[in-house]
């Protein structure tokens, strides 16, 4: 490709400045896929990006399972530390980092539950429980709900606002249209598309049922 420099005839400086501005700014906007790739490559800032993107998800899953903030914080720390140290085991081609972190979270929660039951060895029933590592400590319904809340936050406006009004605040479609000053058809379309998007993202993160 050849670039020819022309004499400044029609405000070329302004156009040039716009291009530079857009380029430099878009470089600062990692998507989930970009974070996953950078993480697999071990790029230094990718752990911070992964933490920013998924720490609420990991922490909320741990909190729901363990019912205790201190334990949930410990598990969250373990998940990100072990994920970073074991990043060589993460294959971005087989799924996104969010799914992988969710899997690690489930294992760390199971470990914590096992440790808890060991601490209760004075009871025979608890001892039996300790030997038997729990296979599912978080039910799939809870995981799905937390994942949906997490994915919903990632959706761009106006769709996110519309979905939150519809799902969280039980507004009718006409009420949302009035509140946001949008055509009713637009509101309905966003809700349909949003529902399909959430379904797609959920499938991507949870994978097929056999991996659960």
């Amino acid at each position, binding site marked *: 490709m050849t670039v020819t420099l022309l004499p400044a005839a029609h405000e070329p400086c302004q156009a040039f400045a716009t291009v530079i501005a857009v380029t430099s700014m878009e470089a*600062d906007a990692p998507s989930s896929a970009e974070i996953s790739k950078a993480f697999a490559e071990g790029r230094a800032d990718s752990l911070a990006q992964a933490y920013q993107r998924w720490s609420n998800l990991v922490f909320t899953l741990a909190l729901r399972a363990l019912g205790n903030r201190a334990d949930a914080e410990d598990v969250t*720390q373990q998940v990100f530390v072990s994920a970073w140290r074991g990043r060589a085991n993460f294959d971005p081609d087989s799924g996104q980092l969010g799914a992988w972190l969710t899997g690690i979270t489930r294992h760390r929660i199971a470990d914590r539950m096992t440790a808890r039951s060991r601490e209760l060895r004075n009871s025979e029933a608890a001892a039996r429980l300790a030997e038997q590592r729990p296979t599912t400590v978080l039910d799939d319904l809870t995981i799905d709900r937390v994942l949906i809340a997490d994915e919903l936050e990632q959706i761009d406006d106006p769709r996110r606002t519309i979905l939150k009004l519809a799902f969280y605040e039980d507004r009718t479609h006409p009420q949302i249209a009035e509140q946001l000053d949008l055509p009713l058809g637009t509101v309905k379309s966003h809700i349909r598309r949003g529902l*399909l998007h959430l379904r797609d993202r959920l499938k991507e993160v949870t994978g097929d049922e056999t991996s659960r």
Partner: protein
Amino acid sequence: MTRHLDDDVLAQWALEDDGPDGPGTDHLQSCPQCAATLAELKLVLANARSKPRLDSPPPELWTKISDELSLDPGQSDVAPSAPVTGPDEPVARRSPARRFGGRALAAAAAFAAVAGAGAGVGGTVLLGDDEPAAIVQAAIKLEPLEGKTGAGTADLLQAAAGGQLKVSASGLSAVQGFYEVWMINTDGKRMVSLGVLNPGSGGTFQIPGEILAQGYRIVDVSLEPDDGNPVHSRNSIIRGILPS
């Protein structure tokens, strides 16, 4: 050859009580794939309507993680910069550095350099009968940009749930698209969307994390086409800057 039902149609049936029409019911009875998709969508909808909530770990957890990893031999090169925001947010939100425009930002930075007028300090305002009082930390006017019409106000509130921005507007005509409230960084490079603004009734928006301290002080209301593109349209209508 079997034609499957359109996803959009299945989503509509999942959302509306009416359900499928006659031919639709026939197809669903004979097509396990479409029936399964409809069931999936209904399940996602039920889960979303259960109002799932996200919790956030405390801000110091990130420090603990980076400390633990930097103690690890061979990992000493890992010193991730602290997230722009996120861990310290009361409720999970998008990262503020995710949406960017071009010229609008350069204009915003230039605006930030000369603006600052119109800032004042208020007292206490009651949001509603049952809601606790929020402290008004600053109240500014939003002025129309060159060639635009409209006006507005933005009040910076300190509520129990964190910083909030109460935005009102007048003279914004109902046209195609929607109005969106942004907080733009005075560096002219970063911005965060607060949400959709109804120009008639205004709105109160949660300010994510500590972004104000990071320089996101320019309050901007843009007119956005409903084109699915989350980037700022560069069509800013009214704007003001919060005092530092």
